């Protein structure tokens, strides 16, 4: 009986083995892919999985007549376009939220003093006076528009978008600046959102993908032109936001 019992046990084991292993192909275990958390351009220690934008309306003291009441309604659709564009470029790994500062900020200086009467897009230097004043009055303790909640990073990386009355656009540090007219004038209508997005991306550290070069025409006339490194949103903004993109190499330097 002992032999029969042992044989029976061996038979059960054999059946179990056949059921579990015979003809069953081995599956290599899970390869966990590190989830990608994007970060500021070339700064891995500054994640941007969540970004919150605080939008200001800045009016030089001599431009109050030019200002509009519905600046939020005008800006909002372009911000929505930005969100959509950002979602596609970062395929959901980075989320943007935004709020509007409740009231416009009237500048201490005139428009000319802010040197904003420049129709072309320049770098941060020309907008530095607006940024300085905003920093002093909005971001620094003691500033007349300072609210610690506004600077809090509870909802992610905090950046500031300033829609201002004047000409020009720039982006530097945590600030992106864009002329209100670029959002409302029909001449810019096709690419207003692209323009706004371009300045916003400067706050994430993205550099411009162009620089100034000289072009020599056939008649030896030399003209200064913007020489594109890439036709992406950081190189060329005069396209609808649906038709532009962020260069792959740029995204790689942001951790994607």
């Amino acid at each position, binding site marked *: 009986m002992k032999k029969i019992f042992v044989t029976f046990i061996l038979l059960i084991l*054999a059946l179990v083995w*056949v059921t579990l292993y015979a003809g069953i*192909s081995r599956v*290599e275990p*899970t390869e966990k892919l590190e989830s*990608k958390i994007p970060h500021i351009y070339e700064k891995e220690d500054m994640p941007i999985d969540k970004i919150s934008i605080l939008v200001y309306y800045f009016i030089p003291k001599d431009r109050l007549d030019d200002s509009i009441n519905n600046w939020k309604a005008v800006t909002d659709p372009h911000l929505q376009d930005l969100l959509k564009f950002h979602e596609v470029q970062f*395929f959901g790994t980075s989320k943007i939220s935004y709020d509007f500062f409740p009231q416009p900020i009237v500048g201490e200086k005139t428009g000319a003093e802010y040197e904003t009467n420049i129709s072309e897009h320049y770098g941060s230097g020309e907008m530095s006076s607006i940024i300085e004043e905003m920093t002093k009055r909005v971001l620094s303790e003691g500033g007349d528009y300072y609210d610690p909640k506004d600077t809090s990073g509870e909802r992610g990386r905090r950046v500031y978008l300033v829609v201002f009355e004047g000409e020009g656009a720039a982006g530097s540090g945590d600030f992106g600046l864009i002329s209100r007219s670029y959002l409302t004038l029909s001449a810019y209508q096709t690419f207003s959102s692209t323009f706004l997005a371009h300045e916003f991306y400067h706050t994430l550290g993205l550099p411009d993908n162009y620089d100034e*070069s000289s072009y020599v025409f056939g008649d030896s006339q030399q003209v200064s032109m913007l020489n*594109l490194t890439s036709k992406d949103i950081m190189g060329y903004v005069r396209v609808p936001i649906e038709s532009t993109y962020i260069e*792959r190499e740029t995204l790689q330097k942001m951790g994607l």
Partner: protein
Amino acid sequence: MIEVKSKSRIRDKFILYFVVLSCLPVLLLGIVSLSAVSVSHRQSVNDLEYQVILEKSKNIKNFFDNIQSTLAIKVETLDAEALSKSNSLWQTSFAEALLKENTSFLEVSFADLQGKEIVKKSKTNKNPDLLYITKSLQFQKAIRGEATISSVHTKISGQAVTIMVPVFVEGGVHNVVIAEVDLSPINKLMKGTVLGSSGYILLLDESGTVVAGESIGSFAPGYNLSNWERVSRTLVIGGRYHSPVKNVPVVGSGMSISNINWSIFVEWPISDADNLINEIRNKILFAVFLSIIVVLLLAPIISSRLVYPIRLLEKTSREIEKGDFEQKVEIKTGDELQELGESFNRMAVGLKRLQELKNEFVFIAAHELRAPVTAIKGYLSLLLEGDAGELPKRVRDFISPVKQSNDRLVTLVSDLLDVARSEAGQLGISVVASDIKAQINSIIKEVQPLLMEKYIILTYEPEPDLPLVFVDETRFKEVIMNLVSNSIKYGSNNGWIKITHVVKNDIVETIVADNGRGISEEDQKHLFQKFFRADDVKKTPIQGTGLGLFITKELVEKMGGTITVKSSLGKGAAFTVAFRRG
């Protein structure tokens, strides 16, 4: 019904061999089938995946080859002089034609060697800006004569690439034609591909970014998979792994598309890919399990059937051993066991005949001997009684042992006759309700001389109301006489014998007990066998044939009673005969 013994080694052996010899091939066959089917299926799946990725990579390669050849061929037909005089007119015509010819083109432009776009036509913009792209690495490659495809641009409107192809005129690069190419045809091609009900394709560009394919969670076009180890392998067919894409086990194959350095991956969830094979597998396993269960159920039944004739033979041989030669074995297996049974029956008949011959011989011998030994006894008695005259003492001394021996011979012949008659069924037994007290008292009277010789005291004090007992009076007397004679013969001087009765319900027991030499436990097992005498008794001068107790038991059993003994060596014995009360 044959009584099944607790130990049945041959049956267990049969079961073991049957199970092993039946189940082993079933298991082996099952393993081989499962393995073969699995291997074959896996190969089929691998082949199918390979076919799919081969076909798709061919389609993609053709897509880009067509575009590049479209951009390359047409411009080469012009010469440098004609080109320089044309004022970009030919570029404009070409750009328009190219845009019209290929539905994938979103924008076509021509750039001079300084990187200035001189002509641009767009499907999405009526007046596109002419840009300056010298700094573009892709442009720099193009002016060196290399056609390039950019990394994939992921836009809200869809995926696109920029293709730059140098325009050669008279062996040198004259212009660069730039096309913005919509990748939605490729995306459609990828999405339209289905393996089973849940297989999918992913197309990755040279940086490992998803270009096209089904969007699965975050694995949408634009997602970079360069950190996935499998992306780096050139060709992998039929790997089975847990995919991070859908987080399920899959059969996956991948291939690199050579001219554009993109990769195409096919993944087919194993639960879908192996759906059919799993059904087959389950059927094979079911068959294996069922076969084994049937074997396990049949094994004891079949082995019992095989062992049954052997059991039958064994039981019948025990009956024959007891002397019942009428027993026959019925084995109808139609094989050697049946022949064995028939031989066994013939042997039983032979044994029976032998027994009958022996009994007949014993009867005849005893019967023939009876007359002469009785005659000898008679004449010796007459001689010793002096009927032939006074015998000299010397003659008397010679004749006495002869008489004793003859007396023994007479007893032996008488016993042999009784045994022969009993075995031949010729012992006449007439059982009636009898007063056994009278029989016992008669015996006591008869044995008084023997008791006095050895100073043995025999007590018998029956109850006055002792019931009648169903016995043959003569045979009962014979039984009790034998027991009392044995007690006297094997008792010591100054001993005692007690005869008592015990009435239990409808059984009356008669117990003859003594304080004689007693009987060992081992000897008690053989006490009622023919010719048995205990070894210690054989060493004594006490004479006996060894048939007395055998005959006693025969007589008791033929009267429907039982006889038992209780004894210990040196402590006497108590024989109990029990009969039904009348």
